[in-house]
């Protein structure tokens, strides 16, 4: 099993969800994040003083999948999130040795879906 972490542009979240649904990936967890990368920030002013904003709003998606689903999930993530502009984001893939469903206590691959 793998734990896939993706940082995407907030406005792409809906398309990512669509793309994942098409590939029958229905489970995910999402958090609000702020990211700093190649994408340039912007300047705000507040009462005449400058603020450089370089932590930009991003959305963090976490998806645990069985090994045979890793590729389709990544494809779907890229399909939904790619606009071709800097700031589109990253996908990190971690090994996930164990997984448990709280409700049933099921473990491993059955617990994921």
């Amino acid at each position, binding site marked *: 099993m793998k734990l896939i972490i993706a940082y995407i542009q*907030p406005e792409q979240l*809906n398309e990512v969800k669509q793309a994942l649904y098409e590939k029958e990936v229905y489970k995910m967890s999402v958090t*609000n994040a702020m990211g700093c990368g190649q994408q340039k920030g912007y*300047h*705000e*002013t*507040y009462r005449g003083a400058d603020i450089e904003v370089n932590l930009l*709003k991003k*959305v963090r998606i976490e998806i645990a999948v069985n090994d045979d689903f890793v590729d389709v999930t990544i494809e779907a993530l890229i399909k939904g999130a790619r606009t071709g502009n800097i700031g589109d984001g990253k996908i990190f893939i971690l090994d996930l040795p164990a997984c448990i469903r709280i409700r049933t206590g099921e473990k491993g691959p059955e617990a994921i879906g």
Partner: protein
Amino acid sequence: MKMKWLKMPALVAAALVLGLASPSWAQDAAEPEAVFDAAAAVSESAYAIDNLFLMVAAVLVLFMQAGFAMVESGFNSAKNTVNILFKNMMDLCIGMMLYFVIGYGLMYPGDGGNGWLAFGQFGIGGIGADAAEAGALAPQVDWLFQVAFAATAATIVSGAVAGRLKFGAYLIYSAIITAFIYPISGYWKWGGGWLDGMGFYDFAGSLVVHAVGGFAALAGAIVLGPRIGRFGKDGKSKAMPGHNLPIAALGVFILLIGWFGFNPGSQLAIVGKDNTDAVMLIAVNTLLAAGAGGVLAMITTWILHKKPDLTMAANGVLGGLVGITANCDGVSNVEAIIIGAVAGVLVCAGVKLLDALKIDDTVGAFPVHGLCGMWGGIAVALFGSYDGCSSQAIGEYGNWVAQITGSLVIPAWAFLTMFILFTILKAVGLLRVGREEELRGLDIGEHGEEAYNGFQIFTTN
């Protein structure tokens, strides 16, 4: 709002006429100056009361600016809040400058205009009324009351076009509506122009104020097009929920309070039993229509969507208020409830209609101010009875032709002129912000400033 010279109560007028013009009786009295002074003092009191009344009314109407700012920002997403607040603040600031310089003179040119377009003077004119007497208004307070109305008409639009209109374009729109569009159609009715001449009646501005704003809003929403994501690829309407309903609800309460300046103040005088009674009737009718609008809108959404919807009930309250505005001085309490109730349903229907037409009016400015404004004009003909508490006869205003003419012409005027303006702004590329700016929010794009610094807010749609 009627002509000022209708307002002097008969008794006071009689006292004045006698006191000022009949030296005969004064000579007969032992101490003529004393009696004369008493009459003058009474006139001064009446003058003070009427002007105080109108000033308080004007302040209440100005307070409505806060109400609009809260409703409109609360009903939109957090990322456009600074922009909406700024537009509301500036249509008051810029609007009052232009209404001072041009608008007031266009709207109240005095006698001798051609009924369609005329111009009086720059600025306000003389400092004091000619004489201190009941029903006389200091020109300053008259202007104060009028400018508050002009600002109301202007600010109605800012909500409808939120989330995509450029700030500069809004300032241009706001300047033009307060300087020209609103004053010109205002002149037609309240300035004594052709609509007034044909017997059209609009007591406090369901049409003159609200429909002008509501139809300008419609024009803006159409020319701009909907926000990205507001209508799905399948054409289905997708909600883009407001981000702060407490301030929106507060705004509705503030607007309700402000309306007690808007409608009762439009009587323009309170001294004289007829005036006093009329003002009080107006106040109660205003409240009852608001309540009925709120209840009916709630019931309508409850039936349609299985759950009662706060934002629609809030719109219903406002719709009821707009609907009663034209006729609050000439209907009974029960009729006020009916007028408000119809407005409450109309608002819900209007929102559905816009959705079906894929027009994105983010706060319901058109259903509330446009549709219910027209309804208010029609209701004058339906229910209006002007013999009970006011000096107008029923036949004079219960005139279907005049009411229908006015209820069509004024909206058409606002819609067409504003449609042209927005289309020109679009053609020169001043109208709509870019896609990326729209998605990230106008607060950062237009103002480099966020409304809720530090708060974690999802901006996924």
